[in-house]
C-alpha cells in the first residue's frame, strides 16, 4: 500500500487522542491560533475557496462559495453542523467524532471566524449518545483553555458551540428540516427561497455543513490550500472517509484520497469479498445511489466521475454485496426505509414511497407482473426532482437506475421468479 498519511483520522490510533492535551501536543489548535493571530476572516475564507473543498454531506457543494453567500454585515449569524448521519451505509461522521472531536471543533471555530458567526449548533442524531458525550466534553475542555467562548485566545472573536441532540428521524439530516428540528417544530423541510444563507436558524443567516467538511477545514488553514489540492483530483481535492460495509472481509472507514478507485477500496482496503464468493453489485453512495456491477468498479470514487456513470458518491457509504444478493430485495428494503422516513409534506414523495415499496413487495413475492414494473418506473419518474426536498429524488434514483441497468431481473420477477432464487423474506 502507498505511503498515504491519513488526515482526518490521524489521531484514531493515538492513545487518548480525543483529549485536549493530546490534541494540542500533536498540533491541535495551531490553525485557529494562526487564523486569529495572522489572518483576516476574508483570508481564511479565500483559503478554503482556493482549496476547492467540497461538502462531504453528499451534494459536494463548494464550501467556500457556500460561506460567501452569507451577508457580511448581518449582526447575528449561525452555523448548523450536520452530524445527523442516518442514510443506510454511512457511518464516517460517527467514526470521525469518536476519533477526533477536537478536530471537528477547531474546524467549526475556523468557519465561524471566517464567516463572522458567533454561535454554532452541532446537530447530532439522537442515537449517537457516545458522540454527543465526546463533543460535549471536548467543548468543555476547549472552553476552559480559551478556544471556545468569549474573546477567544484574547482576540475580539467570540464563539459559542452547542451540542443539540436529535431524537430519531432521518429527515432531520436535510438542512432545513434540521433547522426546524432545532427550533422545536416538526422537522419538515422548508420551501426555498429564502435560502438558509439569508433566512436560516431562528430567522438568521446560517451556514450548514457536514462535520467531515468542517474537520477538513482545519488542515486547509494549517497547511494551506496548495497542500490540500495536492491530494486527490483538482475538481474535488482532499481526503474522503469511505465507509465500507456489506460482504467484505474488513468493513470499516478508510480515509483515502478523493477519487480512489472503487476496486482498490474493495479489494485492498476492505479485503475483498468474504466467504470465497464473487462480487454481485456495489452501492457506491449509500441508499440513494444506483448500484454498480463488476465491470464498472474501476471508477474513481469522486463526485464527478460517479455522476458521469449515472450514480452518486453521496457521503461515501459503499455497500458491497456478493453474487447471492437479489437487487430487487435490496431495492425493497431501501424503499421501505424511504417510505418510513418521508416526512409527508409533499404528495409525490408521501404517496410515491408507499407505492414503490408495495410494488417491490409484490414483485418479490411472485404476485407482480410487467405492469407493476412499468408503474414503478412511472411513479419513480414522477417523484424525481418534483419534491420540496431531495428525499423524493433519493427514493427515486436507485429504482430508476436499477430499472435501467438490471431489466432482466425485473422481467424475471414480473414473470414470477427471482433469477437468484432468493426467497421473498430472506
Amino acid at each position: 500500500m502507498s505511503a498515504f498519511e491519513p488526515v482526518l483520522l490521524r489521531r484514531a490510533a493515538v492513545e487518548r487522542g480525543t483529549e485536549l492535551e493530546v490534541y494540542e501536543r500533536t498540533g491541535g489548535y495551531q490553525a485557529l491560533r494562526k487564523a486569529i493571530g495572522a489572518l483576516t476572516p476574508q483570508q481564511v475564507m479565500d483559503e478554503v475557496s482556493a482549496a476547492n473543498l467540497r461538502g462531504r454531506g453528499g451534494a459536494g457543494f463548494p464550501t467556500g462559495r457556500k460561506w460567501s453567500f452569507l451577508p457580511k454585515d448581518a449582526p447575528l449569524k449561525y452555523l448548523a453542523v450536520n452530524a445527523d448521519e442516518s442514510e443506510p451505509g454511512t457511518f464516517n461522521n460517527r467514526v470521525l467524532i469518536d476519533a477526533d472531536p477536537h478536530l471537528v471543533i477547531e474546524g467549526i471555530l475556523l468557519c465561524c471566524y471566517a464567516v463572522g458567526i458567533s454561535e454554532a449548533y452541532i446537530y447530532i442524531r439522537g442515537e449517537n449518545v457516545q458522540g454527543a458525550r465526546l463533543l460535549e466534553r471536548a467543548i468543555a475542555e476547549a472552553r476552559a483553555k480559551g478556544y471556545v467562548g468569549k474573546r477567544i485566545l484574547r482576540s475580539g472573536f467570540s464563539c459559542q458551540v452547542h451540542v443539540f441532540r436529535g431524537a430519531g428521524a432521518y429527515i432531520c439530516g436535510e438542512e432545513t428540516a434540521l433547522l426546524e428540528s432545532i427550533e422545536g417544530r416538526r422537522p419538515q423541510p422548508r420551501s426555498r427561497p429564502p435560502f438558509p444563507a439569508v433566512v436560516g436558524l431562528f430567522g438568521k443567516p446560517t451556514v450548514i455543513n457536514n462535520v467531515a467538511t468542517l474537520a477538513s477545514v482545519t488542515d486547509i488553514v494549517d497547511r494551506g490550500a496548495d497542500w490540500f489540492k495536492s491530494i486527490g483530483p483538482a475538481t474535488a481535492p482532499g481526503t474522503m472517509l469511505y465507509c465500507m460495509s456489506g460482504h467484505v472481509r474488513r468493513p470499516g472507514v478508510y480515509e483515502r484520497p478523493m477519487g480512489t478507485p472503487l476496486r482498490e477500496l474493495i479489494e485492498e482496503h476492505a479485503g475483498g469479498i468474504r466467504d470465497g464468493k464473487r462480487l454481485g453489485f456495489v452501492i457506491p453512495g449509500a441508499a440513494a445511489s444506483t448500484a454498480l456491477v463488476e465491470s464498472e468498479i474501476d471508477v474513481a470514487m469522486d463526485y464527478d466521475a460517479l455522476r458521469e456513470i449515472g450514480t452518486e458518491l453521496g457521503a461515501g457509504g459503499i455497500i458491497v454485496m456478493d453474487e447471492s444478493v437479489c437487487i430487487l430485495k435490496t431495492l425493497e428494503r431501501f424503499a421501505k426505509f424511504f417510505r418510513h422516513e418521508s416526512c409527508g409534506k409533499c404528495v409525490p414523495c408521501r404517496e410515491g414511497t408507499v407505492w414503490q415499496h408495495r410494488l417491490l413487495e409484490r414483485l418479490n413475492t411472485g404476485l407482480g407482473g410487467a405492469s407493476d414494473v412499468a408503474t414503478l418506473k412511472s411513479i419513480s419518474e414522477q417523484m424525481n426532482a418534483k419534491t420540496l426536498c431531495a428525499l423524493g429524488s433519493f427514493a427515486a434514483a436507485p429504482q430508476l437506475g436499477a430499472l435501467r441497468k438490471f431489466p432482466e431481473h425485473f422481467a424475471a420477477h414480473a414473470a414470477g421468479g427471482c433469477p437468484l432464487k432468493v426467497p421473498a423474506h430472506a
Partner: protein
Amino acid sequence: MKPVTRARIADVAGRYPTKRAALLPALWAVQEEEGWVSAGDLEAVAHALELAPADAEGVASFYSLFHRSPPGRTVIDVCDNFVCQQNGAEALLEGLCRRLAIRPGDTTPDGRVTVRRQECIAACHQAPAVQVNLEFRGPVTDADALLREIA
C-alpha cells in the same frame, strides 16, 4: 415528575433564543430522568415552554426515540436495515424474541427487556449492529450471549 426533572426543564428553557427550541432538550431531560415521556410530563414540558400541549405532542410524536409508554429496564435496538439484514439481523431478532417470548416492539411482562427494530444506526461496519440503552455494540450474532450479558 421529580424535582430534578423540573429543574432540568427550567434550565434548558432559558438556553435558546426561543422557548420552543428547548423542546427536544426538555423531552430528553424527561426521558433521562423519568425513563419515558408520559402524557402528563409532555404537558408539563409544553406548559413550561408556553406551547399548546397538542403542538408539543405533534412534534414529539414525529421522533422514534421518545418512549411514550414505560420501556423495559434494558432497551435493545436491533438495526434491521439492509446491511445488517445481510449480516444476520433477522436471525438475531428472532433469537432475542424467542428467548424472551415477545415480539419486536414489545417489553417482557416483568419489565426487564424491550426489543425494538430500528432503522440504520450508522454502524454498518459492525453489522449486525445493536444498541443497548443507546450504547453501540456489534457485530452481535449470539442472542443468548447478549441476554446473558445484560442479565
